[in-house]
């Protein structure tokens, strides 16, 4: 046992005294070199059981009295020993021993403590100083371990945060990439169609140019003029510009619309990530909501109707990419809570306290025991591998770091409502109250 060994290493072998030894003899022993380190010497009975401790201080007190040595030098040491010494079993742990010793210790320290084995037999002496040194070493070692554990913990927490962020980023990018495929699909096809459809127009232009040339040329005879006329008419029929016009208009219009859609998604992606802006800036939270909605559209568009009631909000200082992450997390959670078709209601408003965003879904809701844990790290109701269980705990931390609050109410079968509140900056609040 490591505990026993800890005390064992403190133990010093000292030959115990018999109670019948006289004080003079014991005084001589105290002067011996091997006992110099001790404040006291142990006394045992014939069965090697500890009877008490004779302290150096007691003997000094006796010898300092006038004629003390003459009067009491021949008395047995048993008369002057401490009959209730500190006895510590070798079985006890270092901490317990320290506790026991410090509890019974009195100032000034005049004695050591006796170490006994499990059977109560005397084994050796321990000194208070050794015990304290051992304790100090142990505490220092514990501190080192704790500090290392703290460093490790911080590192792995940072890694987890990062991987959660990357996971949600990856999900988001994949979603938007797929979202791009629809406009990309018709834009690509339209451009190919435009090329095909406009091809005959070049033929028409060439035929008409030839006709014009013929008309301007006085040498051009009837036959070639008639031929040129016919060719131009044929090209015109083939190109059918009056029929084509409508198709081309439509194709150009749709193509431009598609390109705008693609641009909007790309801008949305950039806005969402905000990698190009400062950490903290004055932001309209409604922009964050719209940005998160754009990104989340992939998850929610085909089954969820989103109702927005966005009030006018003062701009507040925050890290928009983090707030976006929170809103996207809440949105995707809400969409996942909805089985089949459902509705998400997003409201935003401001009051004297701050800016508030409420997200309410009519999904499956949560029982109280789940609700109580949703902000805990690693808590997830999703199957293994589908959620890190960090999304909401990170959201909670982000909002908390902004000095805000995130609250939740839920009812099984009816839905869940999250309320994110961020405080107004002090300056804004002061301006208002003034």
């Amino acid at each position, binding site marked *: 046992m490591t505990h026993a060994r800890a005390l064992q290493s403190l133990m010093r072998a000292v030959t115990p005294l018999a109670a019948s030894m006289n004080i003079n003899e014991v005084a001589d022993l105290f002067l011996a070199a091997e006992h110099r380190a001790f404040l006291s010497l142990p006394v045992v009975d014939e069965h090697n059981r500890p009877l008490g401790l004779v302290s150096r201080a007691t003997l000094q007190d006796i010898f300092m009295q006038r004629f003390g040595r003459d009067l009491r030098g021949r008395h047995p040491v048993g008369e002057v020993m401490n009959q209730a010494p500190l006895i510590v079993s070798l079985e006890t742990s270092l901490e317990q021993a320290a506790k026991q010793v410090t509890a019974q210790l009195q100032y000034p320290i005049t004695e050591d403590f006796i170490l006994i084995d499990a059977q109560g037999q005397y084994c050796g002496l321990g000194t208070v100083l050794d015990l304290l040194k051992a304790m100090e070493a142990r505490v220092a070692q514990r501190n080192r371990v704790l500090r290392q554990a703290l460093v490790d913990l911080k590192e792995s927490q940072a890694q987890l945060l990062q991987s959660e962020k990357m996971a949600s980023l990856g999900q988001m990018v994949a979603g938007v990439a*797929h*979202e*791009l*495929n*629809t*406009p*990309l*699909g*018709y*834009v*690509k*096809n*339209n451009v*190919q*169609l435009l090329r095909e459809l406009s091809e005959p127009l070049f033929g028409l232009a060439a035929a008409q140019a030839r006709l014009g040339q013929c008309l301007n040329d006085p040498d051009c005879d009837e036959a070639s003029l008639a031929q040129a006329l016919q060719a131009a008419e044929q090209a015109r029929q083939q190109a059918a510009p009056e029929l084509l016009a409508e*198709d081309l208009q*439509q*194709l150009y219009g*749709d193509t431009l*619309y*598609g390109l705008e859609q693609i641009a909007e998604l790309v801008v949305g992606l950039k806005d969402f990530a905000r990698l190009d802006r400062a950490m903290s800036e004055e932001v309209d939270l409604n922009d964050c909501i719209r940005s998160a909605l754009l990104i989340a559209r*992939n998850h929610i*568009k*085909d*089954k969820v109707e989103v109702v927005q009631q966005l009030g006018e909000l003062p701009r507040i200082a925050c890290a928009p990419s983090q707030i976006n992450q929170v809103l996207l997390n809440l949105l995707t959670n809400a969409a996942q809570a909805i089985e089949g078709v459902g509705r998400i209601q997003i409201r935003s408003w401001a009051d004297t306290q701050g800016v508030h965003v409420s997200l309410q879904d009519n999904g499956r809701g949560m029982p109280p025991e789940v609700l109580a844990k949703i902000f805990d790290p690693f808590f997830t109701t999703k199957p293994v591998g589908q959620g890190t269980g960090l999304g909401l705990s990170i959201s909670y931390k982000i909002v908390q770091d902004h000095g805000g609050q995130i609250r939740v109410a839920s009812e099984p079968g009816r839905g869940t409502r999250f309320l994110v509140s961020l405080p107004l900056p002090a300056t804004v609040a002061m301006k208002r109250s003034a």
Partner: protein
Amino acid sequence: MSAPVRILFVDDEERILRSLALQFRRHYDVLTESDPLRALQRLREEHIHVLVSDQRMPQMSGAQLLAEAREIAPNTLRILLTGYSDLDAAVEALNNGGIFRYLTKPWDQQEMAFTLRQAAELAVRQAQPLQAIASEGLSAPLSLLLLDDEPDTLAVVGEFCVAGGHRLLRARNLAEAMLQLNNEGADILVSDLKLAGEDTAPLLKTLAQAHPRLLSLVVTPFQDTQALLRLVNEAQIFRYLPKPIRRGLFEKGLKAAAEQALIWRAQPQQVVTRLAEVPRDEREQEKVGSLMGMLGRLRERLIA
């Protein structure tokens, strides 16, 4: 061809529909619907040869639409056209919708035109309704070749064969599989994508070309939309069942395959409405070519 081939495109994005209509209006009678419910209604009212549907739509998913379309008009060839690589949707579209092709957005103009031409040809070729002869002689014994060592798969397939009086053939590797196919022939193939460390996809793709009547059920622990896409388009697989095997689903798939095999058996050769694409990967193309040679005898027997 007397009546023109009629193709119905369904997508919630009108611009996709306009673009497709403009591309194909010269070759086909093109119909478009942005509402899947109205598309189903049209399918009930008119004869439509080919149905091409988007996957993500507000009212219902494309896979759902295609599954319902199969009930309404089983002879209409069904094609999924999607911009999302969603494995569950693709599996549903195959297993319940029995899709002919799985196309992705943005699409290649030539490829799309080629696919629709193939589909149109097949659609026109199938003259009489298939369902009419469905119920007779369903107990005739079939041959089933199993290419999977897993006990779970064997248990379900074995039980199915015993119950239906079908013949169960097994092979431990591709060479044995070729031997079995050449010597015994098979109506249904149940295969993992890996057999004794070998990739079975080339064999599936070869069989789809050499023996379009063979129905392949793929059981696999792999979850890869791209791989599934190629198995649909290049191997015309009948079912894709993720491992671990879900018994009910597997049994249903086997039963459907047996029914289909018996229907085909009762029909002249040309009517089989399956046609696989040539694999796009060159190495796989070579592999399919060489396997095709080894399957010579099977082909001879089938043609005879």
